[in-house]
């Protein structure tokens, strides 16, 4: 602890700022209009110091972790010496501080006694920002100009007076201004809450002590991070994974490659070796790559490390310009979420070499996005958008979760009943799938599938998914999860589709997606037979798969394990192995 900061005052001050960041988030959550914010929680709130270092982030979207500083730096580059009380700044341009166009970053400088002491920040994914496709989220755009309205760092409010030029420009360029302005109001309200609270804290402790404590908040986090990093083994750990394709150049896999270098109390993620940027809109800005890398390392640090930029002083993230991990103009990036999820799996793969007892096998690879849009008979437009994922890889200490959000985006499921009431779609099923989880001592999570039936004459259906050709990997002898799938009319001709698809559907058509299964962790022959029995009884694993993958024979009449048969079968399986060593990573089934 720095000598001049009182440890009690510091704890109180820190607590107050984090509570405020959470309170900002509650306000956004409760007042938002868009499913992306309310259900996918695709927003974040934070407080920075006067220089733009995040000192407290609310419990919101991990994918925004570390992105605020980049965005605020872009604002400061223009306006650092030209800020007044009640100014509000916004931006969304990925090539000047943003992540992708739907994310509007908002900053309100907070003044106390005439001096700038902090910024209140709120980033929110808007339901639409214009461009060629409703929702501004298409995976198959090929340049940023197709993706919507680009807002460079600009004043939305000038000393409390609204910038009508910008306001009207936004209004003309988005499809659903009522929703967008509703959400912008929510962002403004969040910033006002923070302004009030930060001022109260500065008044209470005084300007200089408040500044010292803000510095200490960063130092404190940095100390905790470095302490935790020191406990991990030094070394260089790399990992390679592949995205199926970008939805434009079908069937052309895209390489992700990361090298993690850990030395003492520092760690670096180097994405050199990843593919050149692609034509489709799945390119990541460096801030996305950084946020993903931070999330990976953050997930193996102790839970009590505060979420602020102090962590990032010990973490370096680099990627060559013009790659999928660091897009340059005019690359498209609206659907960069897909790449971010896959980068998280890739980063975890490298970290699994460093901390094998902490890191899980591959998840489902992030969410499947579906949008169903068009016009009703009365020409009124509809657009239904849903992003869902929910399967974790097996862990060194437990099975992978099923029906649980991804670490990178803690999103909630939308209710099928509400979706049906509000949109011309019917949801016929949303259920776990048997025998799709990767086998392992700790198996991967079982994925689920969902069937949608179109109820309008005609609708444009777009699906964005992945891991059809590159399955979720298993670790330490665990098997990979089953691939994902997209199927048109599964009970009537069953046409299998690619992982990214845009098509016209008609009334009665049924579209199914199946999530990939989580990868397994550890030798399936080591799995406790009682757990296998339970999975069989719950129909997550079939009796045949229990024998084939786990060497466990289940008596399905009495619901018991046939111990003798199991021992024999497992012994034969082990004897048939050519080597005792378990592979670190497994991509495909044996034979």
């Amino acid at each position, binding site marked *: 602890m720095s000598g001049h900061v009182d*440890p009690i005052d510091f704890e109180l001050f820190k607590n107050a700022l984090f509570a405020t960041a959470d309170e900002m988030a509650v306000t956004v959550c409760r007042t938002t209009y868009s499913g992306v914010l*309310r259900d996918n929680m695709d927003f974040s709130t934070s407080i920075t110091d006067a220089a733009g270092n995040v000192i407290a982030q609310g419990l919101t979207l991990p994918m925004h972790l570390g992105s605020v500083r980049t965005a605020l730096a872009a604002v400061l580059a223009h306006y650092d010496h030209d800020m007044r009380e009640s100014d509000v700044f916004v931006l969304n341009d990925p090539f000047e501080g943003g992540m992708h166009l739907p994310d509007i970053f908002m900053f309100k400088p907070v003044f106390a006694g005439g001096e700038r002491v902090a910024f209140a920040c709120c980033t929110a994914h808007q339901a639409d920002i214009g461009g060629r496709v409703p929702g501004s989220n298409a995976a198959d755009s090929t340049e940023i100009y197709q993706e919507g309205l680009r807002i460079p760092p600009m004043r939305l409010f000038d000393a409390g007076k609204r910038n009508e030029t910008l306001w009207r420009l936004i209004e003309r360029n988005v499809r659903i201004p009522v929703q967008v302005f509703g959400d912008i*109001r929510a962002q403004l309200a969040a910033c006002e809450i923070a302004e009030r609270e930060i001022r109260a804290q500065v008044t209470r402790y005084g300007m200089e002590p408040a500044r010292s404590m803000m510095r200490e908040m960063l130092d404190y986090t940095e100390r905790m991070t470095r302490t935790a990093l020191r406990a991990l083994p030094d070394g260089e750990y790399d990992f390679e994974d592949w995205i199926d394709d970008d939805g434009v150049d079908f069937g052309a896999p895209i390489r992700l490659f990361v090298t993690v270098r850990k030395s003492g109390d520092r760690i670096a993620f180097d994405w050199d070796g990843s593919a050149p940027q692609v034509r489709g809109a799945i390119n990541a800005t460096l801030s996305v790559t950084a946020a993903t890398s931070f999330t990976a390392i953050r997930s193996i640090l102790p839970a009590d490390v505060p979420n602020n930029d102090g962590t990032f002083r010990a973490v370096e993230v680099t990627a060559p310009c013009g790659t999928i991990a660091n897009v340059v103009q005019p690359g498209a990036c609206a659907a960069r979420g897909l790449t971010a999820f896959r980068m998280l799996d890739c980063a975890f793969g490298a970290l699994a070499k460093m901390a094998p007892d902490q890191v899980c096998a591959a998840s489902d690879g992030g969410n499947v996005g579906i949008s169903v849009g068009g016009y009703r008979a009365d020409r009124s437009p509809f657009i239904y958008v849903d992003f869902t994922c929910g399967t974790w890889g097996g862990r060194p200490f437990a099975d992978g979760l099923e029906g649980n959000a991804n670490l990178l985006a803690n999103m909630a499921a939308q209710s099928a009943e509400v979706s049906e009431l509000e949109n011309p779609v019917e949801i016929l099923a949303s259920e776990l799938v048997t025998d799709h989880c990767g086998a392992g001592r700790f198996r991967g999570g079982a994925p689920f599938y969902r069937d949608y039936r179109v109820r309008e004459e005609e609708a444009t259906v777009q699906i964005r998914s992945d891991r059809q050709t590159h399955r979720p990997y298993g670790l330490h002898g665990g098997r990979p999860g089953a691939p994902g799938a997209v199927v048109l009319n599964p009970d009537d001709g069953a046409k299998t589709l690619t992982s990214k698809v845009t098509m016209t559907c008609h009334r009665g058509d049924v579209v199914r997606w199946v999530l990939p299964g989580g990868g397994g962790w550890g030798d399936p022959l080591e799995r406790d037979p009682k757990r296998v029995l339970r999975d069989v009884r719950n129909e997550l694993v079939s009796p045949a798969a229990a024998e084939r993958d786990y060497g466990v024979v289940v008596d399905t009449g009495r619901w018991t394990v046939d111990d003798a048969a199991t021992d024999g079968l497992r012994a034969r399986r082990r004897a048939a192995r050519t080597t005792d060593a378990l592979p670190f990573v497994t991509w495909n089934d044996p034979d």
Partner: protein
Amino acid sequence: MKNYRIGVDIGGTFTDIVLLDDDGNVISRKISSSVENYARAIVEGLESVFAEHGVAPREVAEIMHGTTVASNAILELAGARVGLVTSKGFRDVLELRNLRMPRLYDLTWEKPPPLVERYLRTVVDERVSAAGEVVRPLARDDAARAVRRLLDEGVEAIAVCLVNSYANPVHERVVAEVVRELAPDLPCCTSFDVLPEIKEYERTSTTVVNTYVLPIVERYLNTLRTGLDARDLRAPLLIMQSNGGLTPAAEAATKPVNIVESGPAAGVVGARAVARQSGLENVISFDMGGTTAKASLVERGEYTRTREYSVGGGIMTGSRLLTGGGYLLNVPAIDLAEVGAGGGSIVHIDTGGSMQVGPRSAGARPGPVCYGLGGTAPTVTDAGVALGHLNPSFLCAGELPINADASRRALEDTVARPLGLTLEHAAWGARQVAIANMIRAIRAVSSERGRDPRDYALFAFGGNGALFATGMAEELGMRTIVVPPAAGLFSAFGLLYAEIEHHYSRTVRRVLRDADPASIDAIYRDLEAQADAQLAADGFDTGHRACTRTAMLHYQGQIYELEVPVSTGRIDRAGLNALTESFGREHAHTYGHRAGAEEPVELVTAQVLGRGLGDRPRVPERLRLADRNAESGSRRAYFGRMHGWIDTPVVARAALGGGGEGPCIVEEYDSTCLVPPGVRATVDASGNLVLTRPDP
């Protein structure tokens, strides 16, 4: 012959019993909660109190009961073996939940296990549309097959929740009939009867929880009733519901989902009633015990309610932003925010070198170091002892001896010396950090909802509420603090103030400006008819039944609703317009902004609350309590750097009747109240200690 009313509140370690006669005389008793058989403990406890005070069973008019039997069944996963019948394609709604988890960056997270395992969830082939039309009829044979499969597995109860049944329960009714045919005595709950509202996960979860605890609650209430009857105690037994109203035991046994948060609600009910007697309409209740602190907001004399909460999700820390930790219930409940901070919370230093309080707790065993029961980690209570706030020799009028030296040594060794602080600075710091943690609960119910805590009085109770009340008030800028009599037993007291209440609701989901007023009117009238019928069945005549209407509204597209009162009488176009306007005002009040007039406002849920009215106040204004205060005199106590150590008088509550000023310590059998320098203290007509902080 006297006329007694009895409140019985089961807590984690103690069961509190309070008897009140018509003249306001109070008898109270703490007994150990015998977990194996709560019902027997209550009956025996009553018997011994009756014997001691010469109470005849016939003198008892009614028994009000707050119970943890339902929540414990959930927390301990000790409910019934339940089978669930659901729609084909939706077998896993209960397990998939809302996908969201309550923690970020946590690779070790485990979901709570589903209350019905997958092999006990069966599906039937049927479909009802969102508009309520039967798209695919349910064959009776198919229902019979699904039910038989569950019966073969030996289920003890069956829950039925089909997709879109909120719009038309016809298929759920078929399944229920089949259950009655095949297993006439088996409890069976359909989702339409438990919660006729949209959202399949919320409705399924609520229905399953109801079914899961039903046999346990039913058995418990039957045992209790039989035990009471056997002692000739024939008074009606009323159960506290999560929503703050009482319900007859028989009704509680059929809808136990309503009594899950029975215990914590009672304290808020008491806070509202006692504050009202003292002329305070706006208070924040603050209930601090050994492991948790809870807060709730009372505004204009009414509770704030929530319609969605989780049981067993662990203690809420931070804000209520992240959900998914427990078992979700969508039934009306008093809105309580809870943090894991109490007297037993452990004081320690984290790896960054900062002082932390909790979330680990020393609990009742080994408890704080000063109890001498083997605890070695200093706690918030040890800090209170070291600061001289708590009696250095004993608590509970001598029943619990205290070793103050042990507290001081533990704090010195584990906190003060490593941080380079004096002992008092470290102990005071622990107190302040605990306060900062607990403030999160108060903010969650106030500033997070656009309410400024400074506009409210702080109503403090629970074993530690009075000790921390002034500190909390100071941090929040609140001026008035009320500490009721017997603050440590106050939840049992709260039961005596409650009235019979029944809540009914229905999904509407219509935009107000397009809605047909007559159809909205019909929905409210139907709900009122249900409430009225239940109150009549409870024995209230027409003059003693009252209904109030409320609406859950939002701007179309929002996910959270705000509750707004709806006027009685026929609903017409003007009424709907007025509703639109009150929603706009409430939105501005809560969130600081409202939308323009062009934005559609949607009525999501219609709600009716039926109340059974008594002829006179439930509790006399002036209570007479036996004064078991043991100590008076003075001791040195620490009040922060500004005041330092002060030789502080230790007084009885009665001594402040004519008014007094801090510093002083009011020491009582069940709690200790700290009055810092500058704070005025008086005792009002109802016996409440009223503290007023000076103007800033």
